[in-house]
């Protein structure tokens, strides 16, 4: 059975979206991403270092023909900067899909929701495929979907915290009402966190630190791929209900007496 993550009409086999930050070097970035099986990878937009322009470029290691490049607006603290960053990213010629994040505070890195809504309105109007990073708030998710965002991306926990899904109930409510993919973005720490998100019925998980900052990023990339796949399959298979008391697995008939 074919099972795709569908975003704005495009089909992706992998439900794992990975970031490209915090790796030791581009070679490690490339290997981890290959092993993760991810087809969508996030990147940030930054000034070129004009005093040392000959440094290698990330895209020399990540072929945009092979991967869907998802530029983010990390580091933007208002709607104007986020929109400006998206326009610059689009000009780079890697498509019109963007990860919108308008940061509210540099200690929590929680999103500034009013600014995210403002930026999303402009970006959708300009034809961007907008994937917004949001808090795990069903109302915000609904508003962004109504604006025309192609997915909603509630955080599991603060970016880079590795705490896992702190409020599964909110994620469940978001899932129940959303008509666009729900992608858990940020806060995943290990493979079981990713599996839990997928078992709940989330459509995908976006992560960076959990892989890049693991002791062995390549091995963790593999674990995350398997965690995502296991969780997705468990969700599709339909888990048994939780019960307080035992139910025997072996037949009761024919027991010796």
């Amino acid at each position: 059975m074919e099972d795709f993550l569908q975003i704005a009409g495009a089909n992706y086999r992998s439900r794992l979206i990975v970031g490209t930050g915090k790796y030791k070097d581009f070679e490690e970035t490339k290997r981890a991403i290959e092993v993760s099986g991810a087809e969508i990878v996030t990147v940030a937009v930054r000034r070129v270092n004009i005093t040392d322009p000959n440094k290698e470029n990330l895209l020399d290691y990540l072929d945009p023909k092979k991967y869907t490049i998802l530029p983010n607006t990390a580091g933007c603290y208002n709607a104007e900067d986020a929109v400006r960053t998206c326009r610059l990213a689009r000009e780079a010629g890697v498509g019109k899909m963007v990860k919108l994040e308008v940061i509210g505070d540099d200690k929590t890195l929680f999103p500034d929701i009013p600014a995210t809504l403002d930026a999303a309105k402009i970006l959708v109007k300009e034809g961007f495929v907008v994937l917004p990073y949001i808090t795990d708030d069903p109302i915000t998710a609904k508003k962004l979907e109504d604006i025309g965002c192609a997915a909603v991306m509630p955080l599991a926990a603060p970016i880079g915290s590795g705490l896992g899904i702190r409020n599964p109930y909110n994620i469940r409510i978001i899932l129940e009402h959303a008509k666009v993919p729900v992608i858990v973005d940020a806060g995943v720490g290990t493979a079981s966190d990713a599996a839990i998100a997928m078992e709940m019925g989330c459509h995908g998980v976006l992560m960076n630190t959990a892989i890049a900052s693991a002791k062995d990023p390549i091995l963790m990339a593999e674990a995350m791929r398997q965690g995502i796949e296991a969780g997705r399959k468990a969700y599709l298979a339909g888990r048994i209900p939780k019960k307080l008391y035992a139910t025997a697995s072996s037949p009761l008939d024919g027991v010796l007496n």
Partner: protein
Amino acid sequence: MKPYSLATLCGCCGYGFFISMKIAVNGEAKEIANGLNLDGLLEQLQIRPARVVVELNRNIVSRDAYSTTMLVEGDKLEIVHFVGGG
């Protein structure tokens, strides 16, 4: 175009007839030869055009317009590219 009175004599070559002008690239002051276009600037900075996006005074310049975009005194340029990020 700004008048020549705003431009300064190039300090590096010593020739009086070689006029230079001041621009800002990624927040850093740069002195460049008068009459340089965007293509020429990127070449001087050893930046591959295919891997960057350029914003001139807050307006994005498309790649096919680099050779026809003449730089003038006081221009503010942002040259960006993709880096690792989440």
